[in-house]
C-alpha cells in the first residue's frame, strides 16, 4: 500500500470513531459542565455563577447523601470482593474439568436477567408478605410478618448481588494464570496461608482485583433501581437526587451540577484506586 492509500484508510477508520467519541461522549459532558455553572434569572435569561454548587454545600441533605452514597459504594465493593474471591479461587484453582466450566457458567446465569428483575426477585423474598417472612412464620420462629425490605442491609444485599459477576470474571481470569509453583514455593519457604495469600496470590491477582473493583464501584455508585426499590425512607442514593432534579423539578442546572459532582467522585476514586495499586486503566480494562 502506498502512503496516500494508507492515509485514506486511516481517515476512513478514524472518522466514525471521532464522531462517536465527540458527539456522544465528549461534547455532551462538556455541555453538562457548562450548564452546571449557569444560573437561571428568568425563563429565558441565564447568567454565569456558582449557585448550583453553593446549594450543594449549603443543603446538608445533598452532601450527606453524596458522602453516604460514596461510603456505601466503597463498602459494597469491598464486600463483593470478599464474597467473590473464594468462589473465583475455587473455580480457577480447585475445580477440575467439566465442574470448572459449569461452575463458571452458573456464576453467569443470574445476569441473564436485568437489574430490575433481580431487584424484583429480592423484593419478593424480603418484604413483609414475602417468602422469607412466610418461612419464618411456618417454622414458628416469628409470630407475625417480618419486614426485611426497606433498610440499608437489604440495599447492600441487592447491590452485592448485582456486582458479583463483574468481580468473579476478572478474578477467575487472572487467578487462572497463576503459576502454582509460586504458591508451593511460598509454603516451602515456611509461609503460612495468610503470608502466601498476602505475598504471592494477592499481588499476582492485583490487575483482576482492581478491574473488578472499578467496575463494581462504578455500577454501585451509579445504580438507581436497587437503592430506590429496596431502600427505606432514610436510604436515599445520590442518583435519586439527580433524577429528581431532571424529571420532577425540571431544574437542569442543579441536576447538571449534581451530575458533575457524581462524575468527579467516581473519577477521583477510580484514579486513586489505580494509583494506590500501581495499575493503569489500559492494563485493567483494555
Amino acid at each position, binding site marked *: 500500500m502506498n502512503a496516500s492509500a494508507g492515509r485514506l484508510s486511516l481517515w476512513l*477508520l478514524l472518522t466514525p470513531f471521532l464522531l462517536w467519541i465527540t458527539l456522544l461522549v465528549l461534547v455532551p459532558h462538556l455541555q*453538562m459542565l457548562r450548564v452546571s455553572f449557569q444560573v437561571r434569572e428568568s425563563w429565558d435569561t441565564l447568567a454565569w455563577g456558582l449557585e448550583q454548587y453553593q446549594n450543594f454545600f449549603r443543603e446538608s441533605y445533598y452532601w450527606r447523601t453524596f458522602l453516604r452514597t460514596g461510603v456505601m459504594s466503597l463498602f459494597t465493593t469491598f464486600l463483593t470482593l470478599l464474597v467473590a474471591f473464594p468462589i473465583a479461587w475455587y473455580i480457577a484453582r480447585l475445580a477440575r474439568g467439566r465442574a470448572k466450566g459449569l461452575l463458571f457458567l452458573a456464576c453467569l446465569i443470574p445476569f441473564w436477567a436485568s437489574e*430490575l428483575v433481580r431487584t424484583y426477585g429480592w423484593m*419478593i423474598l424480603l418484604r413483609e*408478605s414475602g417468602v422469607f417472612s412466610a418461612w419464618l412464620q411456618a417454622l414458628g420462629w416469628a409470630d407475625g410478618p417480618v419486614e426485611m425490605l426497606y433498610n440499608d442491609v437489604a440495599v447492600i444485599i441487592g447491590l452485592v448481588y448485582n456486582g458479583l459477576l463483574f468481580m468473579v470474571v476478572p478474578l477467575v481470569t487472572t487467578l487462572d494464570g497463576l503459576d502454582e509453583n509460586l504458591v508451593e514455593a511460598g509454603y516451602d519457604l515456611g509461609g503460612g496461608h495468610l503470608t502466601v495469600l498476602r505475598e504471592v496470590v494477592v499481588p499476582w491477582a492485583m490487575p483482576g482485583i482492581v478491574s473488578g473493583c472499578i467496575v463494581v464501584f462504578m455500577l454501585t455508585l451509579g445504580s438507581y*433501581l436497587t437503592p430506590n426499590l429496596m431502600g427505606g425512607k432514610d436510604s436515599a442514593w445520590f442518583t435519586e437526587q439527580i433524577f429528581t432534579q431532571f*424529571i420532577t423539578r425540571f431544574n437542569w442546572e442543579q441536576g447538571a451540577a449534581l451530575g458533575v459532582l457524581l462524575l468527579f467522585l467516581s473519577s477521583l476514586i477510580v484514579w486513586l484506586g489505580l494509583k494506590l495499586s500501581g495499575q493503569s486503566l489500559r492494563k485493567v480494562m483494555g
Partner: protein
Amino acid sequence: MIRSVPRSRLFDGVYLAYLLAFFVYLALPLVVTAVFAFNDSPFPSLPWQGFTLDWYLAGGEGGRTGLFHDDGLLSALWVSAKIAFWVTLGSVSLGCVNAVLFERLEFRGKELLYLLMLLPLVIPGVILGVSILVFYSGMANDVSRLWGLELDIFRPGLTLLVMGQVAFITTLATLVIAARLRKFDRQLEEAALNLGATPLVAWFTVTFPWLLPSVLGAAAMAFLMSFENFNTTVMLTGSDTPLTVALFNRLREGSTPVLNAVALFLMLVSALLALTTLRQKR
C-alpha cells in the same frame, strides 16, 4: 490452598458449604420470580394456590390480564426491541471499525485515543443519559426559541435512546472484537494478498470470517445490554416507553404476577440468546 497442598477435612467442608450457600444466594431471587409467574393468586407471594397460566394467557376474565393480552407491556416490548436492534447495529459496526483502527494501524496519539475509547466504561450510566439529554434536548430548545424550528428528533425519544445506549455499548463491542482480532494470524491475510486479492477482498474472505464469532457475540451482548438498560434509558425516554421503564412504573404501583411472567419471559429469551452464542463459539 492449591490441590498439591494438603487441606484439613474441616476446611474442605466449610469451603463446600460456602460454595453451596453462594450458589443458593445467586439462584434464589430468580427462582422465586419464575415460580410465582405460575401461582394462581393475585399477589406474587406465598401460600402456593396452585398452578395457572393465567398470567400469560388470561384475556381479562376474572380481572386478570395476562402478558400476551396486556397491550401496554406488549408495545413496550416492541419499543425495546426496536431500540435494541438499532443499538446493536450501530455499536457493533462502530466496534468493528474501532477494533481494526486500534489493532492494525499505527498513528500519532493512538494511546490517548485508546484511553478516550475506554472512557465510557468509567462514566456512570445516569451521567451518560443526563449529558446527552442536556446537550441535544437543550439544543432543540434553543433552536426552537431562537429560530422557531422544531428539532423533534433531539427531544427525548427513540433517537436519543439509541444515541445514549450506543455511547457506552460501543466500547464493550470494541473490546470484544479487538480481543479476537489480536489473535488473528496476519500471515493468512498476507497470503491472500500475495495470491492477488485486493485488501477489501482479503478482509471479507479471510479476516472477517475469523472475526465473525466475536461479532456475533458482541451483537448478542449489545442486544441484551440495550434491552435491559435502565439508568441511561430512563433519562431519555419520551412518549414511547421501553420495557424496563414500563416495568419500573408498574412495580411502583404494586406488584402483580404479570410482572413475574414478563421477568421469566425475559430470562428465557436472554438464556436462549446466550446459549446460541456459546454454541457458536465451539
